[in-house]
């Protein structure tokens, strides 16, 4: 069965610091992988996606993620966070028709 684990429920980083949000998945085939961001009171917005090819993918807002098949991971990174990055981040895996979402990681930014 498909599953997604985001081990960190809440992360706090200082503005300007680097960020890595972890995502591990279980899937029977080569997965489609996604990261979404949910700002307070808003719907989810797609940050980036991986289907095949280069395992390092670039997304919007300066985010990137790396697919590591051997570790079943798809971690999200940003070299320098901004206060506006404070939000909930969701990793998702599956076929396009149906995604399984992780529990989310809440990111807090210290000034």
């Amino acid at each position: 069965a498909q599953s997604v684990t985001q081990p960190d429920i809440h992360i706090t980083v200082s503005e300007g610091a680097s960020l890595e949000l972890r995502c591990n998945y279980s899937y029977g085939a080569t997965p489609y992988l996604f990261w979404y961001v949910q700002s307070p009171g808003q719907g989810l917005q797609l940050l980036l996606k991986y289907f095949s090819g280069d395992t390092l993918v670039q997304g919007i807002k300066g985010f990137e993620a790396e697919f590591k098949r051997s570790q079943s991971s798809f971690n999200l990174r940003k070299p320098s966070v901004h206060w506006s990055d404070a939000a909930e981040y969701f990793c998702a895996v599956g076929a396009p028709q149906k995604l399984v979402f992780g529990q989310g990681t809440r990111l807090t930014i210290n000034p």
Partner: protein
Amino acid sequence: GAGVSQSPSNKVTEKGKDVELRCDPISGHTALYWYRQRLGQGLEFLIYFQGNSAPDKSGLPSDRFSAERTGESVSTLTIQRTQQEDSAVYLCATRRTVSYEQYFGPGTRLTVT
């Protein structure tokens, strides 16, 4: 409109009452999803519509939950005899057939008292 819209944005109802939530998809998006997001939780898949095909209802938690969609138009999610555990944000997402990206609406926050 430019995006997925949902109404109402907030709904407070008494236990035992029925509620109906509405989702207006992006024009041309053939696929439509309903998710439930409980406080502090991830998204829980409820139901998926693809064009005129039979919907995938595998995520509906009980027979109190139902949803309808005609073609590529508006969808309604109905919860009958609401319970307190139904309190959550209900999110709608739509997708074009040839795309993998789901576009989400802002959600309806349901509170059952």
